[in-house]
């Protein structure tokens, strides 16, 4: 009898859950934070692979659709979460070329003609969009506690009070060979592993999404991070050319010109545009002289920029050209600003970011993506991990699977957080071995003079330093291009105070882009 009762309970529960869920949902949904997995879980039976030669035989375009709620600024919003695949079509043949995995959040009842839609993607190349999706402005975010990360992993997934859902629909899409996105035969994943082919297939996805979802008249925005910055520049040019007008572009810590970043080419390039970032990190730990408080960072970094612009960059140009070292005063100033011992600057006045993070303080290892994150350095030389990355990666991975399951999507495939595309990537672009995509962004602005660009950067990012990005974007000299800095690393949105500040700036940016 007891057994019978238990099974009856299961039966009733199963029946009730099945009856309450599904795409009709609506009014009686419980609050999102406690949503149970919907019944009739949609299991995507397709097996996805990130291998270079992997190819889907055909395009499955199934999605799990659930209805959710979120409270933003005291207002409850009803929205639809759509998880699944949509195929990009080749413009020449109209045949499916790649199956993109995406998660879209769309506000219920909004008018498509005025409701903006924003496409988000990370970089790598080879990175899935999990970082922006679960870290930045989606309806949920991972509470990492950056930079101390003192909580016990996996960090919790919480409602995101700074979600951008109040100002835009949000589409988080994974590049081919990442997440669950894969090429469709006769293409293979590696068909799309290059600067130009990648941007082209993203264009085809955006155009397909717009067509299928009747968003032709919607204001359109792009939000790309890191390598997603150059991807955005090339993509914006391609979309404008194809007749898809963009309203705005957000570049999160972009690597717009690979030829200006000494973290990529430290053999030949000046590293001086990293020095203001070294100063922010050195100040955080009190190694710089004087060390700036967070509130003093704008003034401190302005002085650091001036030092680099007027003194240290000309000195390093001379050093790289002829071996002439900077003056004693310049070396002292480099040491004072950065907090890295003067003897290191004397030995080599052009210090790259990897040397900086390994040597600023003996026995301690500092983060690349976020220099504020540190751990004891117990690693063999050459094998030092990036603690700002390794301390968050497993939590993002674990929460992503649980979260997608809660949105009704499961698959026997493993989600590729970081794939190997970067090893085979064709970085050639416009006749150069490494991409300079500033001309692409300029071409997008030439075709659409109303397009607005906002670059958001972290003071403590030693991967894509803010001053390098400022110099890259200053080449365009357009009043439509703005650059902002925030406390934090590459993913400034992981810092709670910065995410709030960014949200306010992004709201204003959207307002101004839409007022055109």
């Amino acid at each position, binding site marked *: 009898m007891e057994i*019978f009762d238990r099974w009856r309970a299961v*039966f009733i529960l*199963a*029946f009730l*859950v099945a009856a309450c869920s599904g795409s009709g949902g609506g009014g009686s949904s419980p609050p999102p934070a406690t949503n149970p*997995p919907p019944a009739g*879980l949609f*299991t995507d039976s397709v097996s996805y692979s*990130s291998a270079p030669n992997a190819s889907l035989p055909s395009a499955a375009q199934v999605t799990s659709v659930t209805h959710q709620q979120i409270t933003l600024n005291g207002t409850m919003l009803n929205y639809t979460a759509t998880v699944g695949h949509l195929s990009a079509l080749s413009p020449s043949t109209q045949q499916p070329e790649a199956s993109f995995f995406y998660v879209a959040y769309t506000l219920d009842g909004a008018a498509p003609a005025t409701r903006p839609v924003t496409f988000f993607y990370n*970089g790598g190349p*080879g*990175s899935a969009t999990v970082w922006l999706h679960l870290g930045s402005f989606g309806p949920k975010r991972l509470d990492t506690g950056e930079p101390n990360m003192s909580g016990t992993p996996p960090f919790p997934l919480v409602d995101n009070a700074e979600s951008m859902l109040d100002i835009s629909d949000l589409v988080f899409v994974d590049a081919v060979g990442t997440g669950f996105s894969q090429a469709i035969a006769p293409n293979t994943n590696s068909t799309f592993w290059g600067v130009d082919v990648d941007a082209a297939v993203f264009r085809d996805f955006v155009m397909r999404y717009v067509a299928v979802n009747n968003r032709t008249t919607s204001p359109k925005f792009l939000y790309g991070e*890191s*390598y997603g910055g150059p991807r955005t520049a090339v993509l914006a040019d391609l979309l*404008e*050319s*194809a*007749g*898809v007008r963009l309203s705005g572009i957000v570049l999160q810590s972009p690597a717009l*010109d*690979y*030829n200006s970043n000494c*973290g*990529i*080419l430290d053999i*030949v390039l000046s590293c001086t545009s990293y020095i203001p970032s070294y100063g922010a990190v050195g100040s955080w730990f009190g190694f710089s002289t004087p060390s700036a408080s967070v509130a003093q960072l704008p003034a401190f970094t302005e002085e650091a920029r001036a030092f680099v612009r007027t003194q240290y960059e000309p000195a390093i140009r001379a050093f790289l050209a002829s071996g002439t070292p900077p003056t004693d005063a310049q070396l002292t100033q480099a040491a004072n600003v950065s907090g890295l011992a003067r003897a290191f600057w004397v030995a080599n006045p052009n210090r790259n970011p990897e040397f900086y993070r390994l040597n600023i303080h003996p026995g301690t290892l500092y983060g690349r993506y976020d220099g504020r994150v540190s751990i004891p350095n117990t690693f063999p030389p050459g094998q030092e*991990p*990036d603690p700002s*990355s390794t301390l968050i*990666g497993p939590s993002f991975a674990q929460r992503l*699977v649980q979260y997608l*399951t809660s949105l009704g*999507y*499961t698959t*026997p495939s*493993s*989600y*590729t957080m*970081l*794939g*190997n595309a*970067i*090893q085979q990537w064709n*970085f050639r672009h416009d006749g*150069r*071995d*490494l991409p*300079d995509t*500033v*001309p*692409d962004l*300029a*071409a997008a602005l*030439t*075709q659409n*003079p109303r397009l607005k660009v906002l670059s958001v950067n972290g003071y403590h990012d030693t991967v894509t330093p803010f001053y390098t990005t400022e*110099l890259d974007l*200053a*080449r365009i*000299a357009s009043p439509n291009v703005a650059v902002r800095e925030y406390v934090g690393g590459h993913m400034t949105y992981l810092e709670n105070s910065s995410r709030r500040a960014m949200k306010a700036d992004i709201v204003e940016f959207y307002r101004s882009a839409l007022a055109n």
Partner: protein
Amino acid sequence: MRIDRLILAAAILLALPLQARQTPAPTFETEMKDPWVPPATRAKAASQPLVAPTRGAALDAQVEAKLRKRFSEAAAADGTMTREQARAAGLGAIAERFDAIDRTGRGAIRFDDYLAYLRSQPAR
């Protein structure tokens, strides 16, 4: 007893989708390291002469060359382009604004017509 079994069978059938196969743990094939390029790419790029970043007129010329190349690839051999040719080549922006670009109304435009149109657009 039979009813119990029926309920049991129904319960199992209904519960099955609830216990749908779990998505396996995500994969990290590499560490997070962008922006980064493979050693061979890096060595090749480093062996090339350094190019100063373009700005001003040089950047404008790059933009123009980019647009000109795209136009030429879609145009007829004589350098002219009809609305249909623009559309067929995926140049939606030109196709949609064709009449504004084609100020003489010939039904065919040259790159210089397109450039003049772009330059005539309000700055902001």
